[in-house]
């Protein structure tokens, strides 16, 4: 196996390796407070509180305010999808990334060069997020959360089918689905509704605010109720959605003999599911799988690819076999978290 030394030198006239747009002194998804930040989407490893100015889509700004408070940045600059914003000789345009509601790819243009920073993205249809748009570019900075050929995500409808079969087969047990509170929870609820499941869905307290926000922003999720005021027995045969940490916590004891489920791209690896004590793994991901990453890199026609957020090594290796220039971008604070985070 080739040895991949870390921190190679690399340069782009527009963007440096910390995703700093030099000409306008703005950082994309900075992990420390900056004067000027462009935020791709509302997940905590991309959107942090304390920046001077935040440029983002209106949905992302609404999410940040809900999670961190109205004054979590000095100033907000909403920018709608597809509307170019010119600052000096740099043009910024946000394009849908399909990852969660409001998630954007950042297109930076300067002197005829095009750079796209994908943030997190997926290409499968999802009615709780604006649909991904392909943006051609010269330099592509792509995430690689599932950047290994073992990740071949199944159709989400198949996974929801397995869940509903298990619910039908175990009428005496509750199904507890571990979902990241922002994005995954709403997607799973949406998928259940699309599959014709119209019974009430019960929510852990951590889910309530963000589900309400999605509804406010026009994503209908059906009959949602807090998982509070029912007797243990009344949860038999019901679906409850909670953060992954809660499904193995004392909190879960209020449910009758729960089937612990988790909805995440990591769940394709059964050994992973076993480690996490997940009885019914649901492979539902909000990121591209290996094939979609390859497809995207080809379709953007980028000649240079920087890879970050995940399994950089394999995607960099593959890009090089395709004759592309490719480098891993080891951004501080983004070590592989092995499935505890959003995925």
């Amino acid at each position, binding site marked *: 196996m080739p040895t991949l030394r870390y921190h190679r030198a690399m340069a782009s006239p527009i963007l440096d390796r910390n995703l700093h747009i030099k000409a306008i002194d703005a950082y994309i998804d900075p992990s420390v407070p900056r004067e000027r930040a462009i935020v791709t989407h509302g997940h905590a490893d991309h959107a942090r509180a304390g920046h001077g100015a935040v440029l983002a889509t209106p949905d992302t700004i609404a999410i940040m305010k809900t999670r961190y408070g109205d004054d979590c940045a000095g100033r907000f600059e909403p920018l709608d999808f597809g509307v170019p914003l010119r600052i000096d000789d740099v043009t910024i345009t946000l394009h849908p990334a399909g990852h969660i509601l409001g998630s954007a790819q950042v297109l930076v243009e300067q002197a005829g060069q095009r750079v796209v920073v994908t943030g997190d993205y997926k290409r499968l249809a999802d009615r709780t997020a604006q649909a991904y748009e392909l943006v051609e570019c010269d330099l592509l900075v792509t995430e690689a959360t599932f950047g290994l*050929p073992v990740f071949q995500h199944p159709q989400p409808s198949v996974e929801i089918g397995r869940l509903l079969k298990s619910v039908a087969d175990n009428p005496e047990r509750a199904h507890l689905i571990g979902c990241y509170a922002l994005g995954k929870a709403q997607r799973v609820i949406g998928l259940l509704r699309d599959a014709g499941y119209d019974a009430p869905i019960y929510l852990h307290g951590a889910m309530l605010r963000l589900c309400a926000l999605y509804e406010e922003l026009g994503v209908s999720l059906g009959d949602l109720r807090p998982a509070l005021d029912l007797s243990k027995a009344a949860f038999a045969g019901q679906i409850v959605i909670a953060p992954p940490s809660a499904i193995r916590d004392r909190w879960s004891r209020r449910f009758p003999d729960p089937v612990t489920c988790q909805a995440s791209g990591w769940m394709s690896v*059964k050994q992973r599911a076993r480690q996490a004590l997940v009885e019914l793994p649901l492979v539902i991901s909000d990121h591209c799988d290996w094939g979609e990453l390859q497809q995207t890199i080809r379709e953007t026609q980028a000649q240079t690819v920087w890879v970050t957020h995940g399994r950089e090594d394999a995607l960099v290796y593959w890009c090089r076999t395709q004759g592309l220039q490719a480098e891993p971008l080891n951004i501080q604070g983004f070590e592989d978290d092995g499935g505890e985070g959003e995925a």
Partner: protein
Amino acid sequence: MKRFAQLLELLALTPSRTRKLAALTQYFREVPDPDRGFALAVLTGALSFRNVKPALLKETVLAEVDATLFAMSYDYVGDLGETIALIWPHHGAQEDLPSLTDLIELFNTTSKSELPKLIASLLTRAGINERWALVKLATGALRIGISARLAKTALAEMSGVEVQEIEEVWHGLKVPYLDLFAWLDGKAGRPDIDQSARFHPLMLSNPIDEEKDLAKLDPRDFSAEWKWDGIRVQLVLGGGTVSLFSRTGDDIATAFPDIVENVHGLAVLDGELLVGRDFEPGSFNDLQQRLNKKVASARHLKESPAFIRVYDMLFDGHEDVRVLGWTERRKRLEAWFAANPQTRLDLSEVLPFTDWDDLARLRRQGADEHGHEGVMIKLKTSPYVPGRPKGYWFKWKRDPNVVDAVLMYAQRGHGKRSSFYSDYTFGVWKGNEIVPIGKAYFGFTDEELKLLDKWIRANTLASFGPVREVRKELVFEVAFDSAQVSSRHKSGVALRFPRISRIRWDKPAAEAGTLEDMAVFILSS
């Protein structure tokens, strides 16, 4: 195959033992012969294929997938079978696979040259879960956290027959166990198996708690022996036939022809298999080398001859003596030895002692002078009871040696720990450099593992495939049973049974142990 794949998935993912048992019982009850028998064989590890091997599967996959990407994926997933199932790039119509019986038949009858094609077409045809099960079946490594014992317990639950009765006949049975199921279903009598092929479950000991146990036990009621550092075996002498079983009942006769061809008599004996000349046990390393080979090589037979140090007797001739007390059995054993002189068997010596302090002195002396692992203490009146009965046999291990060593390399674990850096190579100072002395992958809690994993990721100097070289800054207190001279390690030292006893987050690496410190642990044997 679909039903079997579902069973495997349920067993892999259901944490509850009760639910696993219920699923197994239901499967054995509902699935007809011979499918259920083949499933039982897979679950108990009794099945292996002559030509279908992990290497063949890997080769089949590497014809379709880049080798570097495969290696990176395997490193990440940590389980070869699962990597193959997940990475297979072709997906066909997802037709049903053949039944378990038909699949096994296919694996056994397809010619070696045709196998890659067969496997490729099966992988393509299968849905994701069946593909996973198919690869598990073909590689033989299930890794789903169920033991043969659990499968047998399910058979017992299904039929009402005691699990020990099933274990007694188990080793004389043949896949797909038609006579076993007929007996369990009440349609036939207990399978009549050859006495010499019968394995008798072993009696095991409990560790002694020096504070709590010793004060309560009267030394006059107990007998003591050295605790030998070999492997526990059961030797079944059938008066012409010989079977040699490991403690789990695996037949290991082919690896030890030097024993099997040179013993005689009619008895079932319990003892420790050791290697060395003239009944002088060599290092566990020498034994390990022989254990690694399914068939012994001529060199090993010459350089590391094996013998059994016998310490108990289950059958004297045809007579079951397990009901007798230890003293009585020991008398029988000594008489049997006198009547059947042996060149590859000897008797484990009974240690004379007056009280526990006296035995403690012996234990320390044995450890220091001969490297003995400790002593065994056996109640003189104890019958031979399979399993781990309380109050009969105790092991009293010597105190471990410890050294402070510096973490050098970390490798990702497998199975349950895949993707965590859980295998550690550590070393001690030799002048100004640190040289490796061993590897350990247990002795810490899951919480500590997470912290170690985090530390390793934050302190990586370079990565070589699955291995990370880290800053030489973290000190482990490593406990081990003994140290031996080794040509395999750069340091020239190898540790026996090393484990992490403490993580010394507080200790600077400069204060870790040196190679000179290690010298005192090396026995002059």
